[in-house]
């Protein structure tokens, strides 16, 4: 039993790392631009396809394509902010919500149009490789995914903590008017923040493709989890997104084992509603 429990914790944490990476991008965008990116999952889907095709057509290993996805998705995020979000930054919530919802519809069905509804994945030499010790089994690509996810999150947190631009982004999230008065070009920061958020979810796609399938609606699946993570962690806390991601990973592993893997979404939703009712600011959120 003890081994099973440890195994579940490992499985949960490995999963949670990726959830955290997806969610942290969503949190950053919400914290700075004050918009919920309903198309967030679709960028995950796009990046999974990007890595898939890079592997399929050019033989690029997903862990290598990661380094192409991050900068290109940063630029995509930048452009989305400039072209779609910027014009409605002061518009009522309805316009903001439906702008990103519409974007999600376009991307999802664009993928369906281009690549059909087939499930696609990358089979590499290490895909099925796993480490076995003391009755425990750790899937190699999952472990790599976990390590990469945490490494990217660490780089992001250090960037926000240490660099001038990072501090400016945090400042903007905390007190917009003062940031403006200190000489920070807030519209440029919006673009950078949106770019980083999309780069994060893009990175998550690249490290997810060796262990999961790409299909047009895969984003919807993960973004639901990301929404729960963000609400759980507190929608304005990046650390909350990290911890929330790991918690949801654990919840999934345990509820899958003790209840049923098919009920995990129901479990998320219960958590979602409970948090909204009991502690709307989440575990780490600031009121």
């Amino acid at each position, binding site marked *: 039993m003890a081994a099973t429990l440890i195994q579940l914790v490992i499985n949960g944490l490995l999963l949670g790392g990726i959830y955290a990476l997806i969610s942290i991008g969503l949190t950053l965008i919400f914290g700075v631009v004050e918009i919920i990116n309903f198309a967030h999952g679709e960028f995950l889907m796009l990046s999974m396809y990007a890595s898939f095709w890079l592997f399929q057509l050019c033989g690029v290993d997903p862990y290598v394509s990661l380094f192409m996805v991050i900068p290109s998705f940063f630029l995509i995020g930048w452009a989305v902010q400039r072209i779609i979000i910027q014009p409605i930054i002061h518009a009522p919530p309805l316009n903001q919500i439906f702008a990103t919802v519409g974007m999600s519809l376009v991307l999802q069905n664009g993928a369906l149009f281009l690549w059909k509804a087939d499930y696609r994945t990358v089979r590499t030499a290490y895909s099925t490789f796993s480490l076995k010790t003391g009755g425990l089994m750790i899937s190699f690509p999952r472990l790599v995914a976990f390590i990469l996810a945490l490494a990217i999150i660490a780089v992001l947190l250090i960037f926000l903590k240490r660099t*001038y631009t990072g*501090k*400016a982004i*945090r*400042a903007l999230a*905390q*007190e917009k*008017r*003062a*940031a*403006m*008065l*200190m*000489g*920070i*070009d*807030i519209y440029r920061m919006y673009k950078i923040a949106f770019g980083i958020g999309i780069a994060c979810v893009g990175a998550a796609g690249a490290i997810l493709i060796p262990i999961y399938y790409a299909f047009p609606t895969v984003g919807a699946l993960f973004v639901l989890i990301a929404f729960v993570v963000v609400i759980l962690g507190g929608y304005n806390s990046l650390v909350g997104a990290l911890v929330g991601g790991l918690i949801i990973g654990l919840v999934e592993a345990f509820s899958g084992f003790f209840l049923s893997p098919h009920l995990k979404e129901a479990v998320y939703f219960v958590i979602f509603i409970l948090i909204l009712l009991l502690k709307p600011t989440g575990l780490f959120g*600031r009121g």
Partner: protein
Amino acid sequence: MLNLENISAHYGDVQALRNVSLQIREGQIVSIIGSNGAGKSTTLNTISGVIQSSSGTIEFLGKRIENLPPHQIVERGIVQIPEARLLFPYMTVSENLELGAYTPKARRGKEENLEVVFRLFPILRDRENQLAGTLSGGEQQMLAIARGLMANPKLLMLDEPSLGLAPLLVKQVFETVKQINAQGITVLLVEQNVFHSLSIANQAYVLENGSVVLEGQAKEILDNPQVKEAYLGI
């Protein structure tokens, strides 16, 4: 140094400033007084570029600035310390100061400015690693002023620096403003505290309903019965 000519500004479609003209000469302390809603903060925000003027011109050091975005105005050397301080509450004192020195020029002079600021407010050195949100009201105001100074201002604009402070601290704040001015920084001061602000200012403007109703030497304005009338309605 700064020249506002017939500036009008609107909040939404509410006219907040009507043909405001004012001049600030280098090295002076200029005070704007007037009751709440008279347009004092709006004047500062229009100079800072946070609010776009609907007509009129603003000239700073001989160049037009009325159409520049806020960050470029800071780069030109006009820095506003906003009402209610607006610190970055979840950042440390030193991070707040660093963000004050955000513009490229200010970054170069960061170390020296830090020394100056710590000499002016020794308490901030002790609080360096404390979150700004946990400081006392007086300390927060010092940090707000310090953060503004880090931006290397030629013209420092203070919006209600004495707001919410105990009388003793109020005196200190005005002392500080005088010291800053003594270092060669021009000051534009917006205050409700008429007595204190006029007693340290060279020039003063009285705003009422978005227009300048009185201007002149601060001392003369202090003795002008019209001021008391505007404030107390008698």
